[in-house]
């Protein structure tokens, strides 16, 4: 009987076999890398805001304390977003006619709040508490990045569970003395490892309890 397949069929078959193996491997690699990439996590991607608020200007250049606007950060689960009034404490004096600030003035006049776009968000079933982190020596910078370098605020870390757990399993490397948590570009002293060891004891941090599910999910 005649051949059903031509001579190159064998080569094609080999190509298909090895090719599908390769495709599978590549798909697996994409499946592992993509959820962690900036493409999906939105890290480093500033969002358009109603007012182009610049942390770079307010924090980096003017040196305003974080707590001036985020006043709940030390005591509450929520760091808090400044009320329009807080913006206007300065901007009733400065840049009073800047077009850029028109929405702020409109908000105060109408009583309608400014709708900011959320930059750092976690899903609804994650209960994050700012106060405990601040009080236990986890700096603003550790999660929010160098906001004083951000003309527009953007996410500095993935904020996914893997990232959270990284620190909750081994908090040491992310600790600093609680009095320095608001400081940007903090330079660890030479004996930082020793300090961190002590901090774990002094602040009564128990990493073995920090991976319990209910720490974040309730």
């Amino acid at each position, binding site marked *: *009987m005649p051949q*059903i*397949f031509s001579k190159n069929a*064998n080569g094609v078959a080999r190509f298909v076999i090895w090719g599908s193996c390769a495709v599978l491997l590549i798909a697996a690699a994409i*499946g*592992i890398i993509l*959820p*962690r990439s900036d493409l999906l996590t939105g890290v480093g991607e500033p969002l358009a805001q109603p007012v182009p608020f610049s942390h770079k200007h307010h924090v980096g250049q003017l040196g305003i304390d974080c707590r001036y606007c985020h006043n709940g950060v030390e005591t509450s689960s929520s760091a808090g977003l400044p009320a329009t009034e807080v913006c206007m404490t300065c901007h009733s004096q400065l840049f009073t006619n800047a077009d850029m600030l028109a929405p702020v003035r409109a908000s105060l006049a109408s009583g309608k709040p400014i709708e900011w776009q959320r930059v750092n968000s976690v899903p609804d079933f994650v209960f994050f508490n700012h106060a405990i982190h601040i009080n236990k020596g986890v700096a603003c910078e550790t999660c929010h990045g160098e906001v004083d370098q951000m003309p527009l605020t953007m996410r500095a870390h*993935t904020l*996914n*569970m*893997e990232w959270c*757990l990284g620190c909750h399993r081994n908090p040491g490397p992310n600790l600093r003395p609680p009095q320095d948590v608001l400081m940007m570009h903090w330079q660890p002293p030479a004996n930082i490892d020793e300090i961190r060891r002590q901090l774990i004891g002094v602040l009564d941090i128990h990493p073995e309890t920090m991976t319990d599910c209910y720490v974040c999910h309730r």
Partner: protein
Amino acid sequence: MAEASANSPAVLRGRHDFPEISGRIGSIVLSGRLPRHFWTAFFLCFLLVLLLLYSITYLIAVGVGAYGIDIPVAWGTMISNFVWWIGIGHAGTLISAVLLLLRQPWRASINRFAEAMTLFAVAMAGLFPILHLGRPWFFYWLLPLPNVHMHWPQWRSPLVWDFAAIATYATVSLLFWYMGLLPDLAVLRDRARSRRAQLFYGILALGWRGSAYHWSRYQVVYFLLAALATPLVVSVHSIVSLDFTFAITPGYHSTIFPPYFVAGALLSGFAMVLTIAIPLRWAFSVEDLITVRHMDNAAKLMIAAGMIVAYGYVSEAFFAWYSGEPYERAMMVQRAIGPYAPLFWVMLCLNCGVLQLLWFRRIRRNMPLLFAIAVAINIGMWIERYIIVVTGPSRDYLPSAWGEQSLTWLDFGILFGSIGTFFALVFLFIRILPAITIFEVEEVAEEEGKLR
């Protein structure tokens, strides 16, 4: 073996030659001329496929609360359907693997479709654990995947074992089946007249040419796969039974379950083999290839498995009493006289009562009657699974929490839909692939001296 004695009819009837065998079996597939009732039956099955699709859509859109489950009986027909289908899936592998290991020649004519039946039954069974979930779209969380929530399956859960067992069983069955198909695909490739059929079967046949070297390795590995499949088939249903025995619920927590489930699986599996084989041999006039001998042997195995199942029933009740556990005892009493008692007694009638008819040779060789008994046992085995699933939790430790679940149209929509889908797949299989193993029948024909 050449003589067909009255006690043991021959495996093959009449005289055959190779072109005749391969031609008859191959033409079912290649000629495409199938009896009209084949298509009628397929159409009916297709309606049931649509019912299944509708039911699944409804289930996913509304939620699992749409069918009968509740608290305390949070498992329902999705689990009993699962166990039932997995049980049916067992006979195929058993016929293929165990009878191959035991070198039983009567395996040859029925192993192919029995294996196909296994695959489709496992496919149906695999559907149910997913439909059972409250959030089916997250079923893949049972797999260890490198995810960003850094979470692993909880390996101690029998459901994870189940997942592993079913996945393994499906894969191994598929490999075993495909390996068995290779030489037959080559036959179809060579017999095919149209280019499309040549390419289709040719690609699937992987260039099989029947070299003695190939046959030598092929036989070793095929045998090894059979040897692997045998413990696998036992382990799979044992693990399915562990879903229950691992729980502390009365009526679930029983050490008899693994062997009892395996026997139950064989019983229902052989019942399903007969349910398919009896119409098949008649519709395609292959009564000389799938002979009364096959049917008779399957019926004998059924009664063997059925008696083990009956023993399981007895020992379950006995140990509930003998354990002295008030909860077990109360549950067993409630099973017999409680709200599910009618189902329980119907089950006993079908699985233990009707089964006894198979002791009689005349009944075993009476095809319509045998078919009816097989169907009855299929029903009985479904009821058995349902009773096991629901009676325990409905009457467990705290009487304040006692309660029953109901059956809704959705329970039946999905069950009958899956049955229809199963048969639709069987029909497609018969249309596309050789339902009887050509090379093995030829081998048997030669060994038995049935060649013209």
